[in-house]
């Protein structure tokens, strides 16, 4: 039997798989190898500079691509408008969708980019592009935003992973930065994969690990290659993660925060993201399914916004309340926008000629609406923003030079493509 609730979305095979999500994040027979641990391999001075700023980033990933016209760039009275109505925000003259009432009250924290004009129209390429700012078709595997932030903002001596993701998110991984910056995937309620639970009593586990350490130390005397060392370090870090595992457990705290964030998986994930960034994790990505509404766009978006609105606004309120907001950049985006034209399935299709992304918090000027689309929302009217421009803005806000150069062999590669410019109007 088909599930009616998943009709109208692209085929699942067109999206990244959960297997891809976990790939490389946790492995080994004992189940305790965590690749992206801290910043052991940081060597650049840029990393230490960025780390000093103490910046964090939370990416709210709208999987499938949310509709700009049904959220932040409404077109009342136009044929493209749809059934949602506007409500006034705290920003004079600026209105958002009626199903974002709580976000409307937080708009003074938001930098709203209404003029995204991007170049990858479908899910696999769009997800890759909006996570790396490079086209998927390039032969070089680029690292995604989280891996880059893990590299430059992660702490070398951290007990926690530096790149955590939950739910439906990106799939590009750490690319040329290497496996140490691969994401650590968990469920949105903080549950870790089953194999992270030791099946031996603590004392036995400890003795077993000591034995392994002894054997590896002996082995190292005769075998000093990097691969062996890397493997050993990964194990050490995995064992340290297990000691900090309780941080991921939100069971006791969640009932007290549920009202603020909304009783949903996504809301709980946002709360956990706040906890993790507070504890020092520099990058957390959390995904919300599923905005890919080629059919029944309006009921799909309405239901999603009822989850999104308290979760996102709750996160901003909680970050502010705990004094983290000024150092934590919150990014709201997906891989594409949605067409102004409403198709004959009551849906909106993928759209890249003029869509919306929202930034808030660390390094971003709030209460700013940047760029615009034309009367019907069919194209950007002013201030087009590319993928590279967006990433240059994000990196700059986080204290990372967007023109940072990396070398793969002898080939230089920059953090953002040539010509990318940060949006100065949005930066503090």
């Amino acid at each position, binding site marked *: *039997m088909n599930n*009616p*609730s998943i009709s109208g979305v692209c085929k699942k095979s067109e999206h990244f798989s959960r297997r891809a999500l976990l790939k490389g994040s946790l492995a080994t027979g004992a189940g305790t190898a965590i690749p992206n641990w801290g910043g052991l391999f940081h060597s650049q001075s840029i990393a230490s500079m960025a780390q000093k700023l103490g910046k964090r980033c939370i990416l709210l990933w709208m999987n499938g691509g949310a509709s700009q016209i049904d959220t932040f760039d409404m077109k009342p009275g136009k044929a493209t408008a749809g*059934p949602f109505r506007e409500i006034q925000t705290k920003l004079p003259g600026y209105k958002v969708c009626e199903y974002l009432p709580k976000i409307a009250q937080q708009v003074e924290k938001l930098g709203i980019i209404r003029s995204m004009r991007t170049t990858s129209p479908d899910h696999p390429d769009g997800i890759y592009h909006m996570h790396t700012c490079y086209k998927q078709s390039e032969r070089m595997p680029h690292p995604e935003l989280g891996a880059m932030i893990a590299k430059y903002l992660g702490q070398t001596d951290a007990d926690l992973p530096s790149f955590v993701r939950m739910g439906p998110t990106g799939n590009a991984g750490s690319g040329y930065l290497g496996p140490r910056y691969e994401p650590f995937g968990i469920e949105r309620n903080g549950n870790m994969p089953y194999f992270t639970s030791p099946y031996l009593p603590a004392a036995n586990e400890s003795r077993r690990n000591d034995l392994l350490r002894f054997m590896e130390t002996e082995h190292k005397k005769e075998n000093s290659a990097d691969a062996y060392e890397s493997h050993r370090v990964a194990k050490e870090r995995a064992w340290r993660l297990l000691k900090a595992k309780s941080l991921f457990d939100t069971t006791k705290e969640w009932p007290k925060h549920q009202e603020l964030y909304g009783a949903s998986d996504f809301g709980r994930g946002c709360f956990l993201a706040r906890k993790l960034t507070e504890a020092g994790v520099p990058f957390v990505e959390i995904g919300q*399914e*599923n905005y890919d509404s080629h059919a029944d766009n309006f009921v799909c978006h309405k*239901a999603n916004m009822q989850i999104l609105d308290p979760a996102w606004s709750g996160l901003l309120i909680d970050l502010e309340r705990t004094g983290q907001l000024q150092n934590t950049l919150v990014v709201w985006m997906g891989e594409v926008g949605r067409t102004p034209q409403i*198709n*004959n399935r009551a849906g909106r299709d993928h759209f890249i000629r003029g869509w919306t992304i929202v930034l808030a918090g660390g390094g971003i000027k709030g209460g700013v609406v940047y760029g615009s689309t034309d009367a019907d929302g069919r194209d950007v009217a002013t201030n087009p923003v590319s993928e590279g421009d967006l990433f240059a803005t994000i990196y700059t806000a986080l204290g990372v030079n967007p023109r940072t150069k990396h070398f793969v062999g002898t080939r230089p590669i920059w953090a953002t493509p040539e010509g990318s410019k940060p949006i100065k109007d949005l930066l503090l």
Partner: protein
Amino acid sequence: MKNTAASKSVNFEKATLLWSFTWDADWVSAVSFIGDKHFAAGNNLGEILLWELPEKPEPLGESPSEKSKPADKSERPLYLSPKPVRQMVGHSNIINRLLCAENRWLISASNDHTVKYWDIEAKPSGMAKHVLNARTIEDINRNKNSGRKPPTPLETEVQTQAATKTIEGREWIIGASLSQDETTLITGDDAGQVAVYDRKTGAEKKRWQVKGWAFAVAISPDLKQSLVSERYPLVFDSGRHTAVKLWDVATSTVQHDLSKEFKDMQIASAAYSRDGKILALGRGGEGEGKIFLIDPSTGKKIRELSPIHQYGVTDLCFHPDGKHLASTGRDTVVRIWNIEDGKMIKELGKPRGGQFKDWFHALSFSPDGTRIAVADMAGYIHLWEFR
């Protein structure tokens, strides 16, 4: 096969498309006969127009504006479409349901959170101009490279009237239905509120909350039972929800929970037969457009109708003879079913080719059972006659 309708004998197999009324300001989303000589249609903009059907219709000529119409999408109508005569002014969002009582009162349920009553015998309050093919002209003018020439504007002027009564809801009112005797109105909205009203006065008699958004609602002829289907259409998320329940109206308690039987199905349409012994349910969305006949006293499935609509069902309506059911959906066909044996006896309209080509949103039988009106999202109201 001949069947006896409420007042006239009806041969469902011999159906003729009399008119295809053009109105493409936005999707035509609802339709209802008001007596045998009038029908009203609503659209996604919240507009409602009223048409009066002529005693002596004018054969369809060769005027360019009429010639290019739905002939290529379905079949060619016999007659030239008369223009609407009246507009009901007051809604500001999608009209989801139009119902009729006493062949005089039109009741509309809308995304603007209201139900409104309209007396078609009321004096008009003003006039308004419409171009019935405005969207087609606008689309062609915007896409100048298409090579198509815009058709002649179908201009018309209609009388306007305001609602005589407004019932305020809390969210989009998607579900609305009248009891067989037209004394009771039931509505369901996206806040999960189900409300039962005295139809004449609009006084609220009962209200209860369901977990999801109330989708299809129906009330039994004896007024004792109601069907409420629920949805919360999240995708790939643990918060998604569907339910199908039969409720005791007097106590607002669940009599039969059919949710397991209809797991993951969004039931978009429901209708009780005239004798109350059968409840028809239609599965909506883009999945298989299945239609189920239920025994409302037990909640047990009597049969599933076949063939299914290619995509979801949008509306179900029992014929006045009590022996037949009409269904329509996202495949732009109308089917007439014999309830007793579950056989399909007639299909009207044609699927429009390719994947996902338009919907028929709603249908309505004339009180004498000889005609059926169908709301077509492509910007038409089709009216077939059975003889």
